[in-house]
């Protein structure tokens, strides 16, 4: 807690808008009331989340140190900032950056905050936000005031609200766009910020804007509302509007957004967003958080009914002048370059070392002649305070402070005169920000994972760092065919690292071997990053974390050597089949004993013996492999076979096989605990419900019994016809239910070992 906290209010008052000042004052009062015990834990938790103050790993006051679970005795004692969340535990502060837009002063303030309140690092997220970690909640109001003084808010950065509105980072300079979506994204972000219609959601709500169909810059199809620029000609006049997609989302079970409108006129954008928000607030699930995203509303109603109810809401909305006020100046919206555009003078051998390679990957030729957009590639999305100041200096020296963050966790400098590129490169090199490879296989995205996230299972950042290092060392010798593949890593199934839409996706899971937990990653293939996240991949099998490097090598080597001319990675995977992809990894999936290879029982960049919770691992009672481990492995195989049927277009078979894999996994748990049941599905479901669900034995500390709900629903719907989409979801849900069975087995084994 900073000594200067009491002084920042007065020092920033004249720089903050009255609304924001009032909002931060209110939060400060709520902090005081919470300390007096006058606000309920759950209410305060949502209050701080809506201000972007998120919990971090170990904030429950416990941490497994590799040997045993230790209590972290924080000075504030039993005071909490939410259920089971200790007051003094460091937390994460998420900072909203609408469409990623940043100026030099804002970068400088972020640098100051990173140094004074955090650990010296600002982290760019996969939704263009900035996150600071290890922040004390008592410092949050001062931090927010300093941000507000440079027109940045943390309001509704987390919680059940409209999250950061994302937008294509090259909007306005893109060669493929229909028009610049920036002013629309900005208008939408500030129209919905704090809007009364958006305060009563059951879950978060995400919006993105893209200027074109084909590229991936804004990932429209994974959003609750994805808006893609569209133009209609009418009577010789061009009319701007948007192709609107709704109900997309990743998470444990990803949903592709559905086409809501082929052309929504620009003046209808904000009222339609408002109407959709009203429908979501009214019809969205409240009790079960894992069914509360808008994708489930769209799925349940069907897109046609969803359109109808939105139209109904739209028709009764009272007129709001803000719907169209921003449009009157929209054609005048343009960024001003600092310098005249001039071509790069080609000098043989005259450019700095490394410049050519950097230019190949990090420089984008703008549609405006003589200008380029430079990507500053940030390792794992991290940038230190001195580097932030360096970027601010570059933003003033070469451009008109037109900086943006990207969903690939980088920064871009727009409107660089091409003639300045060598100097820009030199300045970036001085700051240690000259890494080449932006948008290539070395530019890996990863969520925070076990580093700081409470939900992380395996170390996504540890793995990303290792892959980045290894691929970077070989960058010069990597085959051209794989250079532009994307790797995305999540620490768990929740997909914050967007593993479903990568060429090569990985998400963290755990496996149990003779009472030891082993960190693993599921290998996800078949995803498509381009076309605004055009397809979602599926997991083909779990490989121990420490062997993912080898798994990656095998997959890409096979692609390099066996691909047909110009065959894309997705086409290659489809052609050889996932069974073949899995076959080449199968030996890596076998886990040797702890004695034979203890390094597999630790995660990347973490020296501790791996654990999935606060429960310690008892001493190994022998090398006897429990039958359930074989049974669950069989279930994984069945789920995988379901996926193969899905890929073949046999949706009925896929759905049936996925359901069977769930039944068998549930039966495996029942058998392991000696709960009698008949082989009939009704008997398995009934006994599973009684013994694992009602008793909460199956419940995960964070997702509760949701994976079991997938199983119950699959049973209820057994025999119903399967479509491509429903079968895809069932395969995803089967994989998650089996993961849940693995986790349940791991938890209960560890408990049993502890008691013994």
């Amino acid at each position: 807690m900073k000594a200067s906290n009491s002084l920042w209010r007065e020092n920033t008052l004249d720089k903050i808008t009255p609304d924001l000042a009032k909002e931060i004052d209110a939060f400060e009062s709520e902090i005081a009331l919470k300390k007096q015990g006058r606000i309920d834990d759950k209410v305060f938790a949502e209050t701080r989340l809506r201000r972007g103050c998120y919990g971090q790993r170990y904030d429950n006051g416990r941490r497994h140190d590799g040997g045993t679970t230790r209590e972290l005795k924080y000075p504030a004692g039993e005071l909490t900032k939410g259920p089971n969340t200790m007051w003094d535990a460091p937390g994460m502060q998420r900072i909203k950056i609408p469409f990623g837009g940043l100026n030099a002063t804002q970068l400088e303030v972020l640098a100051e905050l990173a140094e004074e309140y955090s650990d010296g690092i600002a982290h760019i997220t996969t939704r263009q936000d900035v996150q600071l970690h290890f922040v004390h909640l008592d410092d949050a109001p001062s931090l927010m005031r300093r941000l507000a003084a440079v027109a940045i808010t943390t309001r509704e950065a987390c919680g059940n609200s409209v999250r950061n509105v994302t937008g294509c980072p090259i909007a306005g300079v893109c060669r493929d766009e229909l028009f610049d979506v920036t002013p629309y994204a900005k208008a939408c972000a500030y129209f919905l910020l704090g809007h009364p219609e958006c305060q009563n959601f059951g879950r978060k709500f995400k919006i993105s804007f893209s200027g074109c169909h084909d590229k991936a810059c804004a990932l429209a199809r994974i959003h609750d509302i994805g808006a893609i620029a569209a133009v209609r000609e009418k009577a010789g006049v061009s009319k701007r509007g948007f192709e609107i997609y709704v109900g997309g989302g990743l998470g444990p079970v990803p949903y592709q957004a559905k086409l809501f409108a082929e052309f929504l006129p620009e003046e209808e954008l904000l009222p339609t967003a408002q109407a959709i928000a009203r429908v979501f607030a009214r019809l969205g699930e409240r009790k079960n958080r894992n069914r509360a995203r808008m994708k489930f509303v769209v799925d349940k109603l069907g897109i046609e009914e969803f359109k109808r109810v939105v139209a109904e809401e739209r028709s009764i909305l009272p007129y709001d002048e803000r719907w169209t006020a921003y449009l009157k100046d929209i054609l005048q919206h343009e960024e001003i370059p600092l310098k005249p555009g001039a071509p790069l003078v080609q000098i043989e051998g005259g450019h700095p070392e490394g410049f050519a390679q950097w230019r190949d990957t990090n420089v984008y030729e703008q549609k405006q002649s003589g200008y380029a957009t430079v990507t500053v590639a940030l390792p794992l999305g991290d940038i230190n305070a001195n580097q932030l100041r360096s970027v601010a200096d570059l933003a003033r020296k070469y451009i008109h402070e037109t900086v943006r963050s990207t969903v690939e966790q980088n920064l871009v400098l727009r409107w660089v005169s091409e003639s300045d590129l060598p100097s820009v490169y030199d300045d970036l090199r001085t700051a240690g920000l000259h890494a080449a490879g932006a948008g290539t296989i070395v530019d890996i995205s990863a969520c925070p994972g076990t580093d700081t996230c409470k939900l992380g299972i395996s170390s996504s950042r540890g793995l990303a760092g290792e892959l980045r290092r290894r691929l970077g060392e070989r960058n010069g010798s990597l085959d051209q065919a794989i250079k532009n593949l994307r790797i995305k890593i999540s620490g768990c199934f929740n997909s914050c690292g967007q593993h479903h839409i990568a060429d090569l996706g990985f998400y963290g899971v755990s496996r149990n071997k003779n009472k030891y937990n082993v960190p693993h990653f599921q290998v996800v293939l078949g995803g498509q990053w381009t076309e605004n996240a055009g397809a979602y991949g599926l997991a083909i099998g779990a490989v121990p974390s420490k062997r993912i490097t080898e798994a990656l090598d095998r997959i890409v080597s096979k692609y390099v050597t066996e691909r047909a001319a110009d065959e894309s990675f997705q086409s290659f995977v489809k052609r050889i089949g996932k069974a073949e992809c899995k076959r080449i990894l199968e030996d890596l999936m076998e886990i040797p004993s702890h004695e034979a290879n203890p390094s597999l029982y630790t995660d990347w960049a973490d020296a501790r013996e791996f654990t999935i919770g606060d429960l310690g691992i008892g001493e190994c009672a022998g090398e006897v492999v429990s039958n359930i481990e074989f049974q669950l492995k069989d279930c994984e195989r069945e789920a995988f076979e379901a996926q193969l049927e899905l890929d073949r277009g046999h949706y009925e078979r896929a759905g049936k096989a996925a359901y069977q894999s769930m039944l068998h996994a549930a039966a495996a748990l029942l058998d392991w605990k000696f709960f009698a049941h008949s082989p009939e599905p009704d008997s398995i479901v009934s006994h599973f419900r009684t013994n694992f669900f009602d008793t909460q034995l199956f419940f995960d500390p964070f997702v509760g019994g949701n994976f079991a709900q997938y199983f119950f629903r699959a049973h209820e719907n057994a025999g119903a016809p399967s479509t491509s989409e429903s079968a895809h979801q069932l395969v995803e849900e089967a994989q998650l239910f089996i993961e849940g069975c693995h986790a349940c087995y791991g938890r209960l084994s560890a408990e049993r070992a502890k008691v013994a």
Partner: protein
Amino acid sequence: VETRITSEDMDHVNVKIYVQESTSIDLRDAIQVFHRWIQDAVLNELVIDVADYRHVPAGPGVILIGDEANYSLDCAFNRLGLLYNRKRPSEGTVMDKLLKAFGSALLACSHLEDEAVFRGKLKFDAGRCEVILNDRLLAPNTEKTWLELKPHFETFFDGLFGSARYSMNRLGERRERIRIELNTPRPIDVRSMLEVLEPA
């Protein structure tokens, strides 16, 4: 010069003690060392976790995250050193706070030098260090702040270095936190410096 620096202004003292030039270590080893410090309660304070920022050029390196303070093998400005980052306010005078920060930093340096994995490879020089005040509002990086700080620092370092000569310079620009660099003509062993501090 009359000093207006108060004890409160010194609440967030950072001390960075640089390594000797012969040092050559793999920062990866710091991860397991810091995790073990948590397990074995090597430091007499609440330490929570280890953060790995080796991938950030000239960044914070590897950090042992604590409640009172963070300890890191820090690489800022491409200069490796042990950084003690005081986070929680403490009681006492300006001198008490400088003493606490230096004492904690030197003790951590000593523990690191004793680690088997670093033995013979990692050596700190207590005569080359930096003091940073991590609060721009209370202590902006200006000449005025420096002039106000200087008498305190001279008193403290006269006591610390005894008869050894030393130089002090303010570093950095206005946007950075105030940083004071100290240099002695010859390297000073961490243990000998700890012995100087011990009676206090």
